[in-house]
């Protein structure tokens, strides 16, 4: 039996960050991981997809090269090299986590962990099993893609995210089920690489978590790129015949059939709550996720859950921050709970989407009096200069206090710009402070400023 002050199960961005913070505070800390260090984010999520999307961006840039005077002639593309780039980035970062664990004196166990009693963890290593004890155990086991009945991933025709990230060859015709962040990223990626993409969404708009205007803009952009978007549509069945599949889709009263080479399923995720011993201690779950309070405490004393397994939003940066708050709370540091409306979300399709806080619709549903600002990038000098002026920045302020309720951006590199609005929210800046902040020229970020001015009715360039 081995004793620690604190054990973390899962080495994703929630788990490894929690472990480092605990070690920093002086806890003797252990981390248990059953697969690759870094979890889904590093190995099969955020990072490798961004590496692939960079390839898609290069493809797009090359396709536009003639506009800037370059005639490139016939361009060859080696899909294998792009996949290798993506995998090597993931591998490098995963090794980086190993280094961080060593640096912080965190003991790492590689194997499946299960809570066998309060404060007791059983870990199945490759050759034997060990019992670990700690007064504080943090579960950060993450989540996985939800499976659709009848559409189980077979690795051949039906792809999960892993297959979608390591294609051997480019599918000629690709069907993507689900138009959330993951679905639209794959749609954008494969369209730029040359696939014929059909994107299916059950509700009435794509990226339904975003502001409705953002959804509409992205859908229009996708239409221009000849991505076929079917909203209010559900998949009825697939018929796998040899190398192709015939999908039957239901759109309202209409039934459509579609022959495709591959199908990617991206219809939401479900928490990894099985086989980790929750039932042994009576830990409560709710709709596939572990129930926790504002500081990630479960109903079981000494047991905590952070990140995806503890429920939405399913974002790496939310997991990391939850991990830090959870550990600091245990250490007796006075911390404030995470505010959900201050967690930004980014989607890396082309054009990129970034948002934080309430959408205009949600703010109005809550009965808030808002003043909304909007600025189109087509009036932004820098965006025009780089030949990428599709998009806009929308800001939602409280009409009375000027508090920033939300910001919604679609356009080039908006995922880098959203932090500006995040800082403004955290510092409780109002529209007036933002209006009197000097934004550098020329920059795409000037559109943020103009959007704020627009909310005050004083936009300069539109």
């Amino acid at each position, binding site marked *: 039996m081995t004793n620690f002050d604190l054990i973390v199960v899962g080495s994703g961005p929630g788990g490894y960050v929690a472990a480092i913070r605990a070690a*920093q*505070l*002086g806890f003797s800390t252990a981390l248990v991981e059953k697969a690759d260090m870094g979890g889904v984010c590093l190995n099969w999520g955020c990072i490798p997809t961004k590496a692939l999307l960079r390839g898609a961006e290069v493809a797009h840039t090359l396709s536009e090269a003639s506009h800037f005077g370059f005639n490139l002639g016939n361009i060859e593309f080696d899909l294998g090299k792009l996949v290798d780039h993506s995998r090597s980035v993931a591998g490098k970062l995963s090794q980086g986590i190993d280094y961080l664990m060593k640096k912080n004196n965190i003991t790492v166990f590689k194997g499946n962990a299960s809570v066998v009693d309060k404060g007791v963890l059983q870990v199945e290593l490759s050759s034997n099993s060990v019992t670990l004890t700690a007064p504080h155990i943090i579960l950060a086991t993450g989540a996985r893609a939800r499976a659709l009945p009848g559409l189980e991933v077979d690795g051949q025709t039906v792809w999960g995210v892993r297959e979608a990230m390591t294609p051997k060859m480019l599918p000629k015709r690709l069907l993507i089920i689900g138009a959330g962040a993951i679905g639209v990223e794959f749609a954008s990626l494969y369209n730029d690489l040359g696939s014929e993409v059909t994107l299916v969404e059950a509700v009435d708009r794509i990226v339904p978590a975003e502001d409705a205007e953002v959804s509409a803009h992205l859908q229009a952009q996708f239409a221009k790129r000849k991505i076929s978007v079917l909203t209010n549509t559900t998949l009825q069945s697939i018929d796998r015949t040899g190398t192709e599949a015939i999908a039957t889709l239901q759109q309202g009263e209409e039934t459509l059939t579609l022959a495709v080479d591959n199908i990617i399923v991206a219809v939401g995720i479900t928490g990894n709550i099985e086989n980790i011993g929750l039932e042994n201690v009576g830990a409560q779950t709710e709709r596939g996720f572990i129930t926790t309070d504002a500081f990630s405490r479960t109903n*079981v*004393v*000494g047991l905590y859950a952070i990140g995806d397994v503890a429920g939405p939003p399913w974002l790496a940066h939310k997991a990391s921050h939850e991990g830090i708050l959870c550990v600091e709370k245990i*250490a007796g*540091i006075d911390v404030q709970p995470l505010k959900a409306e201050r967690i930004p979300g980014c989607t890396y399709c082309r054009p990129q989407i970034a948002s934080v806080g309430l959408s205009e619709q949600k703010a109005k549903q809550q009965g808030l009096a808002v003043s909304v600002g909007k600025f189109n990038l087509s009036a932004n000098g820098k965006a025009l200069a780089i030949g990428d002026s599709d998009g806009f920045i929308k800001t939602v302020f409280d009409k009375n206090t000027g508090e920033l309720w939300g910001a919604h951006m679609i356009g080039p590199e908006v995922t880098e710009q959203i932090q500006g609005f995040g800082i403004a929210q955290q*510092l409780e800046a109002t529209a007036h402070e933002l209006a009197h902040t000097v934004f550098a020229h020329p920059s795409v970020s000037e559109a943020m400023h103009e959007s704020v001015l627009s909310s005050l009715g004083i936009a300069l360039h539109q």
Partner: protein
Amino acid sequence: MSSIVAIQMPKWGMEMSEGVINDWYFTVGDSINAGDDVVDVETSKIVNTVTATHSGVLRAIIANNGETHPVGGMLGVLADADTSDADIQAFIASKAGSPAPTEATPSDVAPVAAPTQEEPAAATAKSAEVVSIKSNNLASTNLSALTQGEDDSLVAASPVARRLAQQYGVNLHNVGATGHHGRISKADVEAAVSSAGGKLHSAKPSQGDGKSRTNIDDSLIKATPVARRLATELGISLVDCRSSGDRQRVCKADVEAAAALQRKLETFPELPANEPAPFNATPMSGMRKTIASRLQQSKQTAPHFRVHVDCEIDNLLATRKQINSASNAIVSVNDFVIKAVACALMQVPAVNVQLEGDTIKQFTDTDISVAVAIDEGLITPIVKQANRKGLLDISNATRDLATRAKLNRLQPDEFQGGSFCISNLGMFGVKQFDAIINPPQAAILAVGSGEQRPVVKNGELSVATVMSLTLSSDHRVIDGAVAAQFLACLKAFIEQPATMLG
């Protein structure tokens, strides 16, 4: 009416007799404002910071880093910049022979300097350009006026302004607002401090948050670009550096000095070449010295006697299992012992005592110290008013205290005091042991491990889970019969845990 002031070793606790100098925040020649953190002192079980109650120039450092000095001993000298060196030396010489104050100061009194009379404001009217102890005194008076006022949490201020105000101890009610929407800005706070004669300084933390200061964000500290890069290169936090450069910025020389000091602290004293056997020489830490002196004093002054009893804990273990079947409970055997001790002390209050001089203090509530082993030694966090707490409350409080004890995050009032102490070595498989009383407490309970042993009942041999308890008592205040009565009472509670509900 002296304008030369000694910075003295403070007395932070009843039994504090000396302290080890850890780190000076200033070097000789630096100007110090009243309220500035001056020097870190490692005392019994914590590192605390001495703050200046007077303003002036640091003219001499008498106590160097690593040295041990008695309470009341002179650590350094504050004076006017133009006081002559001869006067300073004379002052030091005059104080050198004087004994340390024997009068105990209350532990919550801010440390420091021998009181000097404040000059009347009128008498201090000097030109503002002349830096003198008198004008600094005036400044500190004005500064202290800035600190007055009601709760300022509702005053409109930018986050930076609020944080700065906290650093300077300024109440925001006393600051004029010129920021957006009438908010107090950073500039407003700085202007208020400056106009009250305060010196604007780069932030220095009064207490380290953790062990490695290189983790502290030092990006707000003013430094030259070279100093910042050099600090990164050498792994030095700018927080640990003097700021002797232009416009009070940390400069290259300051970083090099901090690095040299760190190297000196990390290097072990060299052994003579002809030393026969290799060993590691480690100076005793403040905590080690405290443990050593207190327990030696206890053994020498308190006549210990021990009473021993075996308890059957099968009922207790069954009750524990029932309680722990609930998800919100993870009650240990030791939590039961704490609860039982609290109950027994209420029944035999003659054991719930401290001895101070010729006075026996018998407490109304039971504050039970629980010994926790930590890397540097041991510490005894207190489960306060355990008699008023249920078993779950005791269990949760104990776990939180033990967690924070290991992280060095206990507040002094969480481990100083206590009316009774429990030391449990059962988890190490120890069957039975004697413990030394932790003065001014008068008794300590040593708890062994629960193990199956043969017992004879009604002439029959049977097996029971048995735990051995040993009470060490100070015979000056607790007599044998009282100790025996207490143990009998404790045994009854432990063997029939349901009776603790009564």
